[in-house]
């Protein structure tokens, strides 16, 4: 399973767009890129998944360049409630297990 590298923490202010980049240099051809969000005292929650180019849903956008060695999670106009740990994961459904790193702690301030 490909290892991922992402910043330990990021700070932002309400209303700003936040971009969290994840590196996965050893991503395999069959691997998908998935992002989860975790609030304190809760389990992780799926945000978005993609394979290439751009994916957008009601919560976030995921940008994946052609070489797929990195990806960027974009959160538009963050609010205080977006303060959480964001995990970037790489793998396939066939492997079943999710491999989490330490994630990025996003702190949104007023």
């Amino acid at each position, binding site marked *: 399973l490909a290892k991922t590298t992402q910043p330990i923490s990021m700070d932002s202010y309400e209303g700003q767009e936040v971009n969290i980049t994840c590196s996965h240099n050893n991503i395999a051809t*069959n691997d*998908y890129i998935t992002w989860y969000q975790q609030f304190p*005292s*809760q*389990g*992780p*929650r*799926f945000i978005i*998944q993609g394979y290439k180019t751009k994916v957008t849903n009601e919560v976030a956008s995921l940008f994946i360049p052609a070489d797929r060695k990195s990806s960027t999670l974009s959160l538009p106009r963050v609010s205080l409630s977006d303060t959480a*740990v964001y*995990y970037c994961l790489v793998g*396939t*459904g*066939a492997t*079943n*297990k*999710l*491999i*989490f*790193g*330490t*994630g990025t702690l996003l702190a949104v301030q007023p």
Partner: protein
Amino acid sequence: GAGVSQSPRYKVAKRGQDVALRCDPISGHVSLFWYQQALGQGPEFLTYFQNEAQLDKSGLPSDRFFAERPEGSVSTLKIQRTQQEDSAVYLCASSFRGSGSSYNEQFFGPGTRLTVL
């Protein structure tokens, strides 16, 4: 609709005691996972069930850890002779599809925080 539920939410055990942690997955979900999350770390995989079959238990840290899902729905994670290093949050997750699916979103419960004194 109900999500994944876990009980108890908090458990305090004395070193050497046995504990049992319960997970109720989303109804109809084929796959069930257990993860262990230490303070400040991401969750770490423990074991995986597809229906009642335990297909992967490679993450169980020792033979003191045992998991079962006898009827393919509710699952129990049992830890025998608990040690202080077992203190962590134990997360359960379920997903609709079985292995081999490229899209395999996992739905997590709130976790059980185990403290071993």
